[in-house]
């Protein structure tokens, strides 16, 4: 039994790592996983999920995940994830341009879900015509939904059912929002090691920042905003599972010796007021001066 608690959404879908084909998930295994860990609430939620012959109904799981991501988008909107990503991404893209990086500059969102960040950037980011915005996720239903929504609003981005690191055209910049807490221990180092490709120049991974108030804050927000029990449970657990700055920088530095890794935006004004979210930033050392110049007054938020 692993020591890292999983969210319900981690367990109710499974994919073949090579083909990304859906694998069957036995409902009893999901329920037992939570019962063995004393998580009665999660076990109850899992037990209520539709199944056929003991196997979770994939279509029903996809519909549920689409609704859950729609609810989670409210968190992204209320905490301005699109705007935040733009504020950090734009200077790094300028740094890449100043350094003469190859065009187009491909920004890949790892585990994009419903594609909120890419869709927002595609509509309001004004990142430049030399930028391609690509969202990647294993789940075909979520990717299909993201494509529908992007088309409905004419957002300049695209979505792929893919492992973000094995796209036909690799990214120059990898980003994620609320994803890295899903990786634990060796998985986290493996995740960072995947960024080592030659094309990768920058990564920006935003997630909850752990703090004494984070569990209460997560409970409060999810209590008043989320209607689906799975959203509430997984949202609260996400905040509890959030990696500290030390864990993230240690894992990234170990896995990526060819990158400069640092935390960005941990504190509101100054310590000790933590922001709700922090960002792990990584870039090729040759970009350092361009990055600091492009960040301008925000360079002080980068903990080099």
């Amino acid at each position, binding site marked *: 039994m692993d020591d890292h608690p999983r969210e319900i959404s981690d367990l109710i879908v499974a994919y073949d790592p090579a083909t990304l084909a859906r694998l069957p998930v036995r409902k009893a295994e999901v329920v037992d996983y939570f019962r063995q860990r004393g998580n009665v609430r999660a076990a109850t939620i899992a037990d209520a999920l539709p199944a056929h012959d003991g196997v979770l109904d994939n279509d029903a799981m996809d519909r549920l995940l689409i609704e859950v991501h729609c609810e989670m988008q409210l968190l992204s909107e209320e*905490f301005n994830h699109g705007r935040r990503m733009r504020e950090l991404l734009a200077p790094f893209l300028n740094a890449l341009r100043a350094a003469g990086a190859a065009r187009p500059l491909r920004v890949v969102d790892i585990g994009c879900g419903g594609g909120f960040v890419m869709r927002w950037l595609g509509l309001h980011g004004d990142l430049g015509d030399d930028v391609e915005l690509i969202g990647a996720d294993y789940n075909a239903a979520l990717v299909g939904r993201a494509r*529908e929504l992007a088309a409905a609003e004419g957002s300049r981005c695209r979505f792929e059912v893919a492992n973000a690191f094995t796209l036909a055209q690799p990214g120059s910049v990898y980003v994620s929002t609320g994803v890295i807490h899903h990786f634990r221990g060796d998985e986290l180092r493996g995740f960072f090691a995947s960024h080592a490709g030659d094309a990768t120049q920058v990564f920006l991974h935003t997630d909850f920042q752990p703090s004494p108030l984070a569990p209460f804050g997560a409970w409060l927000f999810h209590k008043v905003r989320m209607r689906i029990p799975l959203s509430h449970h997984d949202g609260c657990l996400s905040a509890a599972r959030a990696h500290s700055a030390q864990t993230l920088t240690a894992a990234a530095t170990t896995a990526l010796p060819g990158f400069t890794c640092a935390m960005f935006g941990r504190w509101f004004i100054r310590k000790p007021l933590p922001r709700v979210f922090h960002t792990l930033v990584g870039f090729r050392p040759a970009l350092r001066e361009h990055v600091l110049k492009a960040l301008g007054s925000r360079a002080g938020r980068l903990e080099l």
Partner: protein
Amino acid sequence: MIPVILYLLAVMDCAFMGYRAAAARNALINKRRYYTRAMLRGAALGNGAVLIAFVLVQVLLATAPLREIAYRELIAGGERLVWVYAPYAGIVLVGFVFRMAPSTDIRSMMNILIFGPFTLIRWPVVLSGAGLACVSVPSWRVWVFCAVIVGLMRAAELTLNRWHSPRAGVVGAPAAA
């Protein structure tokens, strides 16, 4: 003045109820029209609730042996409601003003400090206002009035949530602009 303030508070509360009922059900990026319609729907329902409350007040006054005393009791009860509801509404409105700031930090701070916690305490505030009015003005007309308006607020909330709820089944499709 008290009836006017209560009217404005009721309609504003219902408009925000409409917003909350609509929230997290539409995955489009640009939702200004969607939320505007949701708030107008809430405000319309609020006006309906106010109309019911107005009719109730007229009945309470018409059936009172001493109309002037009954009127003063209801005004006194309404005053207590304003004492509790107006500061709550004022703080929420201040939050909206700050939320228009260009800073993502200030916008997020408003969610943490005001919108989240004040959504959580909304029903305790509603019941506290009604409780204060009932305790301060020991008149059965005030008690009936408070019970009815609390019931109307709950009914409005349930109605708005139910109005949106069937549409949650089509959340997979883009909502009509």
